[in-house]
């Protein structure tokens, strides 16, 4: 039994790491490049309201989170797009509102109060095969969406105003991208947790941005770094019993520090070469 459990755990962990890394690569690059990290934080925290609602209604909390995450992502984009509200204000309101709604519904849920730690900080133990399948489907959708519409996504994100001169589908693709971002974030909550997922999306793309300014390369290398970081985090978490999400973030932050160190060394090497050429 023990070996079957271990085998299932390892397979689930590896698949979870793979799919979460695809999200980190594609969505992470998108939100970091578009400077939407705060918006992503808003989406994750707003989705906590859906988790509470799910518990209260007795349905899958992830379904509730998806509903809240998607509507908050599209809502924030709509409000800022129409200039009716500053984006940061809209995010701040939805951020706190989602958390408040979640806490109220969980409080109102009759019987045993559910363990929220898994949702807040992530735990591979709470991830079901259903979650893995949804994450897998989400990853496939993200890959196809990015490959098929790579240039359009790139140019709309870079210069929306100019993009309007060559396509009248700017609005459609903006909402599609933000909607997919919202869903991808929510489906990763079980793994990394509401509070920690933002670092999973932000750190790998930030690390790669130190070494390249090409969007496609940032996606690919963020995926690689995430996969190594998440797998290492899982292994440590399993061995030490520490919360998975927290360990993953810890590992990624170490990678981030090492990458800064590496970049500094590379720059020092480059400047030494330059000065020696100058001296000659």
């Amino acid at each position, binding site marked *: 039994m023990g070996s079957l459990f271990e085998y299932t755990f390892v397979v689930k962990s590896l698949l979870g790491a793979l799919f979460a890394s695809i999200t980190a690569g594609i969505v992470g690059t998108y939100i970091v490049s578009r400077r939407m990290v705060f918006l992503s934080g808003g989406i994750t925290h707003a989705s906590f309201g859906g988790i509470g609602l799910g518990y209260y209604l007795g349905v899958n909390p992830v379904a509730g989170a998806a509903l809240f995450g998607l509507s908050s992502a599209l809502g924030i984009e709509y409000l800022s797009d129409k200039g009716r509200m500053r984006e940061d204000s809209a995010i701040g309101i939805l951020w706190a509102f989602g958390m408040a709604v979640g806490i109220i519904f969980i409080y109102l849920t009759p019987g045993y109060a559910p363990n929220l730690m898994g949702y807040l900080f992530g735990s591979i133990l709470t991830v079901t095969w259903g979650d893995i399948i949804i994450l897998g489907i989400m990853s496939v959708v993200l890959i196809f969406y990015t490959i098929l*519409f790579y*240039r359009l996504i790139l*140019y709309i994100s870079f*210069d929306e105003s100019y993009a309007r001169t*060559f*396509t009248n589908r700017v609005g459609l*693709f903006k909402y599609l991208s933000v909607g997919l971002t919202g869903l991808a974030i929510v489906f990763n909550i079980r793994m990394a947790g509401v509070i920690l997922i933002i670092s999973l999306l932000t750190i790998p793309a930030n690390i790669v941005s130190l070494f390249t300014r*090409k969007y496609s390369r940032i996606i690919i290398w963020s995926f690689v770094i995430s996969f190594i970081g998440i797998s290492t985090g899982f292994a440590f978490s399993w061995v030490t019993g520490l919360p998975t999400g927290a360990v993953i973030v810890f590992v990624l932050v170490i990678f981030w520090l090492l990458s800064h160190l590496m970049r500094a060394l590379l720059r020092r090497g480059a400047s030494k070469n330059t000065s020696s050429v100058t001296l000659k």
Partner: protein
Amino acid sequence: MKSLLKLSDLDAGYDGSVVLRNISLDVYPDDFIGIIGPNGGGKTTLLRVILGLVKPLSGRIDFSSGNLRMSEIGYLPQIAQGDTLFPVTVEDVVLSGLMINKGVFGRMTHADKRRAREVINDLGLGNTIGQPLNELSGGQLQRVYLARAIIGSPRLLLLDEPANFVDPTFEADFYEKLKVLNQRMAIMMVSHDVGTISSYVKSFACVNGTIHYHPHDKITDEDLRAYGCPIQLVTHGDVPHVVLKKH
């Protein structure tokens, strides 16, 4: 000669307020028109109407006489909105000028990339092709946006204050390049610097709520007064002066 573009009795504006009234203008294939006028007079709106970004409230835009297609219009906006910290290279940005012919899938071919290299080299940016935008100077950036506007070999080039951020040493070179481009495309160029552009444009259009076409490359204070088109004081260095004719 057939006109490329014909605007007839056009009114346009935003959110119910009319910015341009009764605009009529014919643009010919070899035109180089300097669009001048005070701030808020509707110069940028005029370009945006031609691009289809602002829908006219009434009147007509006719592309048919010169068989001009929207994909044959190049555009350099007044202040490019592009986020210079966004991870795109010079080549990526220039290639975006071809997107109008590519549809939503936007696949770029080897020929497209070759064309991008040609345009980038022509504008003296050859060594920046793989560089991110945040490593370029303001003048280089403006040339990148010009490359984006002309990569599709447009027949009509719309430029909104293109010499913004271009350092004075490159400004004359920049306008000379436009003069060469004018041999194969019509150009409409918004500028506040009437004195400088009068050496390059072939005619003026004064836009101040409406339009007055001036079919000569020199324009005087009296002309501007007659057109109801006051040019505001602008600053060159520390010395403010009215920009009129050559200085």
